[in-house]
Structures are given as C-alpha cells and as structure tokens.
C-alpha cells in the first residue's frame, strides 16, 4: 500500500473512532452513573470517572434488594434457554422435512407455514391472551416459552441450509439402509451445525430482550424476566438514577458477553438473510 494511502486510511480511522465513541456515549454514561453516588449523577461537567465510588452498594441493591435481579435473571435464563432449545429443535425438524423429505404435501404445507410469517405478532395478541387464559398457560413460563418456540423465520433460514446438502448424499445413505431419522440426525445436522449456531444465538438474543410477551402473558412479579423487571424497577426507584443505571448495566451486560463470544455468527446471520425478528 502506498504511503499516502496509509496516511489517508489512518486519518479516516481516527475520525471514525471519534464518531463511534460519540455513538457509544449513552453506554459510557450509563456505566459511569451506575458507579456513582446519587448526588453526583447529574453533576456538570459530566464526571466520566466517578469521584466518589458507590458501585458496590448500587449493584448490591439491584441484585439483592427489594426487587432482587437475581430472581429475574434465573427466570430469564430459564425462559431463554428453553425457548432457544425448543425453537431450534422444532425449526430443524421442520426445515429438514420441508427440504429433504420429498413428499407432495410438503410444498402446500410450506406455503401455509410461510403465510403465517406475514401475521404481525401484535395483531394476534388478544386471541392469544384469551386462548392462554382458557387453557391455563397464562402467567406461566411454559406459556411464554411456547410463544417463542415456533419460528417461521428459523425454519426458513435453516431450510436454506438443508437445501444446500446434495441430494446424492441422502440417496446414498438411503441405499445403505438409513432411514430419514438417521439421515437427519447423523448426516444433515452435523453439516448445518454452523447455521444452527447462528440461528440459536439470534433466537437467544431476541428472547432475552423480549419485552412485549412477558408484559402481556406474565402477571406474577416473581416470574418476570429482565426487560419487564427493568421497567418496573425504574418506575419504583423513580429518582434513584444511579440504581436505575446499575440495573440497566445488569440488563445489557449478559448479552454483550454473548454477542462478543458469538460475534461472527450474529453478524453473519444478520447479514445473510438480513434477518430481523
């Protein structure tokens, strides 16, 4: 690379670095405020590095105070892990069925499943609510998990990957006497593992952050997941901004970690189909 090009690239990098820092300032402010004593939160000029540290007390109050976050964390982990596992299983099965089992009904059924993707989630909240009350799934984690378990998007995404497996491979296995179940489990699944990881991580993030479903389908305080708990916490603690920021950090941090670990999968998954859920 020519020297002038390197200089040009460096200058642009520095400018962009400044832009990205500006872009991330809300996060920085949140993090810094979460370690301050209440009186210092709004001090101006902004103290980016707290002068008087109160982090331990703030986080202790958030995690083990009157509305202990550890309960909401456990709930969220339970709901998110279950939803992700079930959703990945159901979507993989369906994706295999729609792509590698050649059955005449398959095409019609696939169109039926795809058609349901056009229904906005919010347009069916009321009947879902009535249904849940009738069959006793209202205000339960099981109900919440089931709501996130049947993903058309996941099925569609995984189907694309199953389709890329050569049919000859399947036929060869069949001649060797393998049934579809065996082919699915020991040939197809290992091949599409990266796609499953991608979809799994995305489903994990979406479920963890879901606010609307827990808001409507849960009522008992001890069952809440983090987003709704976060909102309740901020309403109850109204003017204690340092506590609210400590709660916000606690709500965001786990996903930042998941994202950094699964960065490649997340970014590829998003880029791939331009997925949004």
């Amino acid at each position, binding site marked *: 690379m020519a020297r002038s090009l390197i200089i*040009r*690239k460096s200058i*642009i*990098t520095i400018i*962009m670095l400044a832009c*990205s820092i500006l*872009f991330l300032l*809300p*996060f920085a402010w*949140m993090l810094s405020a979460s370690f301050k004593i209440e009186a210092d939160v*709004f001090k101006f000029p*902004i103290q980016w590095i707290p002068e008087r540290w109160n982090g331990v007390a703030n986080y202790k109050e958030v995690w083990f105070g009157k509305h202990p976050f550890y309960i909401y964390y456990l709930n969220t982990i339970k709901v998110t892990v279950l939803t992700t596992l079930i959703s990945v299983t*159901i*979507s993989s*099965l*369906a994706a295999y*069925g*729609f792509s590698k*089992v050649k*059955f*005449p009904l*398959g095409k019609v059924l696939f169109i*039926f499943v795809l058609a*349901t993707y*056009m229904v*906005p989630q*919010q*347009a*069916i*909240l*009321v*009947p*879902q*609510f009535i*249904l849940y009350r009738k069959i006793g799934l209202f205000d339960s984690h099981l109900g919440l998990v*089931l709501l996130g378990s*049947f993903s058309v998007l996941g099925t569609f995404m995984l189907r694309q990957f199953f389709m890329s497996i050569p049919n000859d491979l399947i036929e060869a296995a069949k001649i060797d006497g393998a049934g579809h179940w065996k082919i699915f489990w020991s040939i197809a699944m290992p091949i599409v593992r990266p796609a499953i990881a991608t979809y799994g991580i995305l489903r994990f*993030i979406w479920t963890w*952050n879901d*606010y*609307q479903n827990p808001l*409507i389908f849960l009522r008992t305080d001890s069952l809440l997941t983090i*987003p709704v708990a*976060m*909102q309740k916490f901020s309403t109850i603690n109204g003017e204690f901004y340092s506590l609210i*920021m400590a*709660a*916000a950090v606690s*709500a*965001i941090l786990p*996903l*930042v970690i998941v*994202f950094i670990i699964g960065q490649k999968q*997340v*970014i590829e998954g*998003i*880029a*791939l189909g*331009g997925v*949004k859920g």
Partner: protein
Amino acid sequence: MSLKTELTTPVKVSEAPKQRKVRKEKTENLIGLLFVSPMLLGVSILVMLPIIATFVLSFVNWSFITPLSELKWVGFDNFIRLFQDKAFLKSLMNNAIFILTVPTCMMISLLLAIIIDRNVFFKGYFKVAFFMPYISSIVAIAVVWQVLFHPSAGPINQVLMSLGMENPPKWIADPNFALFSIMLIQVWVSIGFNLIVYLAGLQNIPKDLYEAADIDGANAWVKFRYITLPMISPTSFFLFITGIIATFKVFDLIAVLTKGGPINSTSMIVWNLYETAFVNLKIGPASAMAVVLFVVVFTITVIQWVGQKKWVNY
C-alpha cells in the same frame, strides 16, 4: 380412498412397480408429516387460529371480564368508530411520520458502511461498536435515554445550556418534541442492523467494476452514483421494506418512555392497540385495530414481492 384399500390389502406375490411407488410415496408423506408436524401444529394453534379470531372479534363488542354470553355482534361499527376516533387517526399519523426514520437510518448506515468497508483499520471493532444498541435490551436503552433526555438535569440539556442555548427542548416531555426524540433513539438503535446488511451487500459488488471505472478516470462520486448505488439497490429495497414494517410494530420504546403521551403526541398504532385491549379491556375496537395493522403489513409485504422484480434496478 382407493389408495388406502389398495395398500391395506395384503400383497402376496410381488408388488407391481407402480404399487411400490405408491407405497413409497405414502411412507414418505407420513415421514414428512412427522418431521413438520410440531411446527405445523404450533403455527396453526398460535398464529392461524388467533388471526382468524382477530377478524371475528373485530365485529363484536365484548370485554375480557364479562361472560361470553354478553358478546354482541356490531357489524362494522368498530371500524367506523375507529376512523372517527381522533386518537387513532393521530396514531396512524404518527406511524406515517415515523417512517421517516427508515430512509434517514439507511442513508447514515450506507455512508458508514462505505467508509468502514474500505477505508479504515480495525473493521471488526467498528462493526461491533455500531451494532451494540441493536443487541441491547430496548427497555434498558429506553431507560438510559429517558435520563439523558431529562429536561433540566439531563446531560444532553446541560451540554446544550453550557453551549449557550437558553431554552433547550424538553424532549420527551414536550408534545412538539416527543415523537422526534423517540425517532432519534429509533435511528440510533437501527443503524447497526442496517450497517451490517449494507456491508454484506457491498461485499457482493464485483471489484472489477470499480477497477474499470478507475481506468476511465471516474471520481468517487461518479463511482458511488453509477456503481455502488444501483448495485446495492436490492439491499436498499429490502432494508426499506423491512424497516417500514418494523416501524409499524414499534412498541417497547413508547411503552417505556412516553406511554403515548404527552397528549397522544407519541401514540402509535400498536401502543393504541395495547392500551385499548389490555388497559381499557375493549376487545372489539382493539381487534379492529389489529385488523388494520394486519392489512397494512400484508399490503407492504405484497408490494415487496411485486416490487422486488420491478424496482430493483441494475
């Protein structure tokens, strides 16, 4: 029917090839069904059934707490009232204004994507940095912005005042600024998604197009206008459509930040639906709103299918 009898009859000697094929097809049908049945069952009960119920309920007058026997059929009353309801029309209007966030966000993201794609070091860092808001809990983000936007003590207004602005806007507390403030947050949150999709789109443009343009002595603007922009148009179209659909579903930001206020200035269709159904317990009108929402999203999706062929130009 005839198929079934054929197959249940025990076949003694040797199956005719045709029969064997029929039999194979039948087992394949059964196996296929087994694989897709959990998904099929799930979407039938949790999506198909409810959307039909939504249409039915939009013609009734009923609330969750009253017995089913008090359900009244009111024909198109719910819809007629809806379109005379000032608050609902205001919500629709707000949704229409909110669409502006989509092209705004796309332009910023495309600019960032072009810069990040070729012209910087640490590409990986920038992807992660701009993607942060997208993976963060919207509720937590909304709460943080609520504090940042605090009219008197918030850091944003403190900065504005220190820069000599005497009456900075009250942001989400001011009916004239509230919607704009929420749009601002929406753009901030969505940049990451748009950026990643645009970066993927840019990768797919053949490099030799730019090399050819370089040989012809084209400047950066000409290359952008006549290569990048047309070649990236499928991505833009995709982002535009999904972006618009997403604006119609905006709920979390409103629910946490403003609850539709002040004076309905940030009420949007889904918020209105939620309030009507789950706060005021009016099932009929809420279902009518749901039908409107469904029709809007459905129409946009159809436009997407048709438009994909027509408007993507290169």
